[in-house]
């Protein structure tokens, strides 16, 4: 790999964010803040039933209401769709992929499925008129749980498929059954990871404008402007070359805006039909039904081990809820965790099976971590269970099985480039003062205190930085995993960077400027990062799976090297020396041995602009584009610990300490990394203690608002203790992804801590989220 020629001064430092200047003053460009002259507003009529035949849709009253421009049923718009809302991941050859149109026509398949749309002069009138739409439903039997949905005779989500089984996907290596048969100890555990509702604080929103020859401009609160542009051609039949998608400031995503949604297609189709801009803003209660959910997986996990604590095999069998339809990557979410069921441990025999299951529920899709929290949760919970079975300290068990040599090719086939799991755990223990915590615990137990404490661990690794295109192809994903960067010197020396990634809170405008400033030897304030508009950034695969820095950041590096290479030719020509005689450092090319003969890269940019004296045949301008397709995934890892206090009389559980030590490779901006870790662990802690998207057996959503789905506030959480250990990734910047590590690691650490707090009472398991009721019941069960 090429060595970086400049020694930077910005990478590795906590440069303050460029994004803040507008966001702190209330000048964010969120879709809801944008308006075009003549805009009309859209409201969706949604099914109140989890499953119902749509017998008729009467729009007469709605169409006659004040301010109404138009109203349509699903049947009215059926001809507008040139294709189904796309699912990009047919994970097996025989996967069942039912069509999914923006409005249901004959049958609604989940509570919130759209059945009609009303367009009016303003949002209030649209909403008023939507209430006047009369839909005659015939309610059908329905089912919400993945296990019940697979039982004989269960109500079918798609009757024509004859089953609720969407697919079965397997990954096998070695001889797991033989290892289990030969094992001294076999531990088999069952886990349910509930539904999670992502809850980006900005709900979704879209604004669409279509010109007279089908030029579509679509502003959307999306993570994926480029993927959306591609998908909109498939759904609408408008050529991608005529489509411009703009993701302005986007208020968080966490995977929930990594999708191609019915409302985006509807707004575009209606803007085309009506000839005026169409806008839609999601309400929060609507978000709970109409925006994808995460998790909802039942696992059975088996470990085989020798008496000395060497794990010889792992077998995972999981039933994963798809919901009622397949959204963009719904079936593939479990696969993102498929290679992580050995965790950071060396386990020679490996078997993973996923069964995708349709249920009458909101579709699932990526939610922060996507597949990897699922895997890490069951592995780290079962490590503790195995340690108890063996009578061994759980950290000793973890250390005994850690992968120690890198690069390491796992039994499951992928190669981890770098890591040092012992180093992260060592550092964690230095911060934690485990002896002190254990002493406190022993005293409380001896006194029989009502409030007991427990400490829980999670040592993890994960694969992110999505992803090598060839591997994506091999696992049947429809697109590639590369990304692009353009670096453009303006004539007077400032720099524009165009990235194909699309931030929605991750601080790319700052961190990407740091990377480029160091490469080119310019000031970070001279670098402007442009993103989120397909007319500006033509090539990109957007932001998800902790890929922006690990993929898009490396594209920045390569584009920088191309710019430096062209500048070198210009400088060599003007100074009349050979390129090999030039050294480049801190933005200046100087002749080796004659440092007084020099020219800055900014001067070369002006020379490239004026074009008065360029080498023969050289094109004017100093601008280069690189696309980068990663050779491997990115492999962060680390060690986390949670300390909880449990009131054994009420079941009330408080997190009192959380320590995270992560290896995310070479840090670009430590403060921003810490911010990602804080936010990530909070979503894992929330899953462990507070959040559950609950359905009744028929698929009626019970947690319908933020008043019943408990997104934690500052009052529920402690401050965090974070640190890093660093092993450089095998890429030119040595960087790894950081967006999801916290969420992947945190939930098992917290639940292991709750179990530890109650272990002396005989409790060995707690269903998450560990609500006071669940904890109290678990205590009652063991004490009766």
């Amino acid at each position, binding site marked *: 790999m090429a060595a970086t020629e400049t020694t930077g001064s910005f990478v590795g430092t906590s440069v303050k964010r460029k994004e*803040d200047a507008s966001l702190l003053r209330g000048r964010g460009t969120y879709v809801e803040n944008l308006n075009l002259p003549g805009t009309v507003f859209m409201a969706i009529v949604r099914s109140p039933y989890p499953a119902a035949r749509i017998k008729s849709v009467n729009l007469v009253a709605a169409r006659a209401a004040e301010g109404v421009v138009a109203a349509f049923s699903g049947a009215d718009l059926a001809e507008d769709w040139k294709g189904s809302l796309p699912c990009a991941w047919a994970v097996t050859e025989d996967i069942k992929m039912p069509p999914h149109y923006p409005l249901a026509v004959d049958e609604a398949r989940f509570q919130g499925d759209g059945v009609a749309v009303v367009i009016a002069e303003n949002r209030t009138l649209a909403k008023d008129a939507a209430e006047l739409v009369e839909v005659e439903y015939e309610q059908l039997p329905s089912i919400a749980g993945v296990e019940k949905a697979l039982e004989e005779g269960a109500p079918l989500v798609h009757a024509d498929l004859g089953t609720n089984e969407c697919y079965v996907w397997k990954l096998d290596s070695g001889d797991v059954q033989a290892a289990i048969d030969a094992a001294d100890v076999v531990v088999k555990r069952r886990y349910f990871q509930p539904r999670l509702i992502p*809850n*980006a*604080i900005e709900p979704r929103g879209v604004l669409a404008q279509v010109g007279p020859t089908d030029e579509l401009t679509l502003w959307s609160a999306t993570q994926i402007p480029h993927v959306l542009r591609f998908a909109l051609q498939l759904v609408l039949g408008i050529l991608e070359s005529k489509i411009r998608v703009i993701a302005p400031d986007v208020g968080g995503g966490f995977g929930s805006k990594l999708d191609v949604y019915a409302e985006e297609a509807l707004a575009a189709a209606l803007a085309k039909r009506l000839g005026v801009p169409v806008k839609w803003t999601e309400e929060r209660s609507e978000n709970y039904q109409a925006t994808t959910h995460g998790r909802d997986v039942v696992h059975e996990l088996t470990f085989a081990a020798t008496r000395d604590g060497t794990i010889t095999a792992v077998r995972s069998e999981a039933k994963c809820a798809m919901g009622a339809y397949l959204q963009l990557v719904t079936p593939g979410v479990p696969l993102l965790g498929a290679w992580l069921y050995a965790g950071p441990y060396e386990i020679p025999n490996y078997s993973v099976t996923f069964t995708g299951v349709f249920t009458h529920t909101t579709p699932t899709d990526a939610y922060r971590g996507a597949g990897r929290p699922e895997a890490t949760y069951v592995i780290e919970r079962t490590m503790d269970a195995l340690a108890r079975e063996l009578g061994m300290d759980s950290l000793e068990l973890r250390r005994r099985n850690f992968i120690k040599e890198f690069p390491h090719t796992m039994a499951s086939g992928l190669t981890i480039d770098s890591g040092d799991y012992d180093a992260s755990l060592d550092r964690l223990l230095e911060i934690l003062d485990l002896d002190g915590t254990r002493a406190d615990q022993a005293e409380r137990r001896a006194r029989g205190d009502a409030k007991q404490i427990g400490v829980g661990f999670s040592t993890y690794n994960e694969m992110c930085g999505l992803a090598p295109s060839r591997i994506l192809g091999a696992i049947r994903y429809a697109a590639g995993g590369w990304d692009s960067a353009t670096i453009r010197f303006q004539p007077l020396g400032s720099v524009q960077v165009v990235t194909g990634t699309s931030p929605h809170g991750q601080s790319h405008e700052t961190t990407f400027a740091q990377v480029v400033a160091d490469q080119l030897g310019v000031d970070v304030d001279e670098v402007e990062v442009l993103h989120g508009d397909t007319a500006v950034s033509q090539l990109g695969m957007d932001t998800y799976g902790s890929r922006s820095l690990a993929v898009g950041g490396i594209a920045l590096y390569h584009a920088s090297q191309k710019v430096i290479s062209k500048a070198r030719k210009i400088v060599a020509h003007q100074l009349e020396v050979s390129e090999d005689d030039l050294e480049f450092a801190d933005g200046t090319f100087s002749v080796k041995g004659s440092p007084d003969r020099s020219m800055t890269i900014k001067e070369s940019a002006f020379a490239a602009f004026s074009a008065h004296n360029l080498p023969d045949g050289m094109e004017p301008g100093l601008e280069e584009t690189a696309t980068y397709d990663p050779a491997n995934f990115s492999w962060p890892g680390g060690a986390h610990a949670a300390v909880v206090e449990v009131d054994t009389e009420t079941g009330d559980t408080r997190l009192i300490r959380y320590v995270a030590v992560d290896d995310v490779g070479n840090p670009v901006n430590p403060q921003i990394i810490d911010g990602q870790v804080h*936010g990530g662990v909070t979503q894992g802690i929330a899953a462990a203690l507070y959040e559950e998207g609950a359905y009744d057996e028929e698929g009626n959503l019970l947690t319908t608002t933020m008043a019943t789905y408990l997104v934690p506030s500052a009052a529920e959480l402690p401050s*965090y203790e974070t640190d890093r250990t660093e092993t450089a990734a095998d890429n030119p910047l040595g960087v790894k992804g950081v967006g999801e590590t916290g969420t992947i690691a945190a939930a098992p650490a917290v639940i292991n801590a709750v179990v530890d707090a109650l272990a002396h009472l005989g409790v060995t398991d707690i269903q998450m989220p560990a609500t006071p009721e669940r904890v109290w019941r678990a205590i009652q069960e063991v004490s009766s």
Partner: protein
Amino acid sequence: MRQVAIIANGVRRELELEPRELLVYVLRERLGLTGTNVGCDTSSCGACTVLMNGEAVKSCTMLGVQADGMEITTIEGLATNGELHPVQQAFHDHHALQCGYCTPGMVLAAVSLISSGEATDEAAIRDGLEGNLCRCTGYHNIVQAVAAAAGVS
């Protein structure tokens, strides 16, 4: 329709309002103050927090007509002559925002908490911000920022 006068960021604005119009939409759509965001429909998230006569209120929970004669401060009115308010500055210094959507409400809630003298320590700050949800930061840096702006550790 009702005739009301709202003093928004120091400017008196006379408006004819439908009685059902929520204050947040009056600010956003009548007065063009789009810095105040809407994050939920149950008064849970606090993204729409503004100051009314100096005290934090959730503007999605109030009718516009209830603000008649009141002084409303939104995020646009917090900086003076382009200089960030100390709480805004502390949010910048401590990386207390990521996507920025909860930020206007969070900043104004913090301003109110500090000015009322309730931001006395970390626990009080955490309790005082209970009505404002952030999904990005895990609150750690927000609490640090508010503590710094309040001069407590």
